């Protein structure tokens, strides 16, 4: 007797997860190409997907947090801080700067540990952290500027033949994240914790260790995102990326992730990040004034999340 399956998906994070965000990119990309056919070139694609790099990195960071059912509301503030460290501390003293990054990683791992040990709500803890990050950022860099090291600029502006570098980078990032999530032990444990923490516990695995490592990844990819942003904008700005938190969440959801944890799709998340980046570009090309852009972004995020909840048709009990 053959098993009855709900859908033909047999690969985790498989093709169905990738269809939707791929489809979404096309929905946004095609109007862009229609409005500005010139974009369809090496240079055009380079520019289009440039900003997708930091956004994708932050999205992956958020994806790790959401995979175990938590969320990081300080990511936007964190990457702004990282640009400030890159622009202010690193040029002055590289070792100190690296020490700062190490410190951030340690803080993240502690957060991961204590969220579990003390049953703390990640929303409020990370909101608190967001004020701390911003405060530190404005202390070391009160106004935008700074002296972002040239090497960062060179790395993010690296030119590759045939295929624009950002696309290569995004592909590598997606692959790397995919390998971590689906091919490593910690990836299995992480998804297990998100799916059925009781079962993980009962089999003798340590949820605490998993939380610590996963939040270490959140911090790591957040830092990388900040460095990428610094390299691209060559600016250290404490307030630059505050919107990124929500954009990252939307990208993860667009890519097939959920708030409850357990379901993650790194490839989908990266594609989602690209979509959200293109949305910004599309809004500009549609000549929607910058004033309306942030509101439009908010509306689009809402639309994405809403569509997602309809499509997933979650049967949760709602007393609301």
């Amino acid at each position, binding site marked *: 007797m053959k098993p009855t399956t709900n859908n033909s998906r047999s690969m985790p994070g498989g093709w169905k997860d990738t269809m939707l965000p791929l489809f979404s990119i096309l929905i946004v990309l095609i109007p862009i190409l229609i409005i500005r056919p010139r974009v369809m070139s090496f240079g055009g694609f380079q520019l289009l997907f440039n900003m997708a790099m930091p956004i994708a990195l932050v999205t992956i960071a958020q994806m790790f947090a959401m995979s175990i059912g938590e969320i990081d509301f300080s990511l936007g503030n964190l990457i702004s801080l990282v640009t400030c460290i890159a622009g202010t501390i690193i040029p002055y003293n590289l070792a100190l700067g690296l020490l700062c990054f190490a410190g951030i990683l340690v803080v993240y791992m502690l957060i991961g540990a204590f969220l579990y040990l003390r049953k703390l709500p990640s*929303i*409020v803890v990370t*909101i*608190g952290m967001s004020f701390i990050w911003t*405060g530190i950022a*404005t202390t070391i860099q009160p106004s935008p500027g700074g002296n972002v090291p040239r090497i960062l600029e060179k790395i993010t502006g690296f030119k590759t033949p045939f295929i624009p570098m950002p696309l290569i980078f995004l592909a590598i990032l997606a692959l790397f994240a995919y390998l971590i999530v689906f091919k490593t032990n910690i990836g299995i444990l992480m998804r297990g914790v998100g799916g059925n923490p009781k079962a993980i516990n009962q089999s003798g695995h340590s949820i605490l260790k998993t939380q610590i490592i996963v939040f270490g990844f959140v911090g790591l990819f957040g830092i990388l995102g900040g460095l990428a942003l610094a390299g691209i904008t060559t600016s250290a700005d404490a307030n630059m990326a505050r919107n990124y938190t929500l954009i990252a969440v939307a990208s993860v959801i667009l890519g097939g992730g959920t708030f409850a944890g357990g379901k993650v799709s790194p490839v989908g998340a990266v594609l989602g990040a690209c979509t959200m980046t293109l949305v910004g570009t599309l809004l500009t090309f549609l000549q929607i004034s910058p004033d309306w852009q942030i509101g439009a972004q908010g509306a689009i995020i809402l639309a994405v999340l809403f569509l997602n*909840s309809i499509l997933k048709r979650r049967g949760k009990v*709602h007393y609301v």
Partner: protein
Amino acid sequence: MFERNPLTASLEALGERKWLWSYIGAVAVYLVISVVSGNPMGTLAASITFASFFILVGIGQMLVITNGAGNIDLSVPCTLAMAGSVAMKIMNESNGNIWIGVIAGLAAGAAVGAFNFGLIRIMLMPPMIATMASSFIVKTLSIVFFRGLQIKPPAGLERFVNFKIGMVPIIFLFVLGIAFVMHFVLNRTPYGRYIHAIGQNIKAAWLSGINVTSNKLITYILSGVFASLTGILLAAFSGGATLDMGDEYMMNSIAVVVLGGSSIAGGNSNIPGIVGASVLLYLIVNLLNILGLGASLRSIFTGIVIVAIIFASGEKLRKR
């Protein structure tokens, strides 16, 4: 049989009354300030004036948080700024328009609150996402309609807001009165009881016949109203509304809720705590200013306070 050490007994009683801590803290900080500052009395008057604004947003935020874990209103800063602008624009510097301006501002806040709840209930968004996304939209509307408009408040309103009875600012008395009323609303009205029930155990609340939806809707609307009231008063006090005048209130609203002893998991509220915590928080801000430590440090400090208190009030994870 030994007699209870009066010191231990009073410390125990203190431990149960969390809100008392903030008053003690406030007194302590004030003593420090009076040593350091040149004008202790004036500082006190200014402090409780500014603390009044913290109290108002704190009450609104507390109402939302009381509704249970996960409920939070991140649209406070934008609603505050927008309502202030709306009110100033309608008042148009004329005393005759004060009331209609106030009503318009409050209505705008209520509308945002209702919109937030709509997103939560109908579009099934988690509150943190819903309110953050809606803040993007509100911000855009504010920018579009009010950018560059620098309308001064009507003279009568400005006088009221700055009026002092002896040394006591009338605005503080006004806000204290509102706090007093809300205290009774929360403890002695069906609505107040219902939201406490919902915050403690939403399923039990539903099974007790409580209409969870309508009570939550009222709460989010009230949060919007409190934020907008703050915005109107703040605009009158500062000589006009600006688009970023609400920015600091995000962290302050959460900080005074947490510092005042309300549980972040919901189900209990603490108006006296909000009052004490607001005064304490502003006094600390003031002290930091006097000592020459700027806004950045304030941000870091507020974040640390939030994280520390949540950490301290977390439950220990029980094994098995």
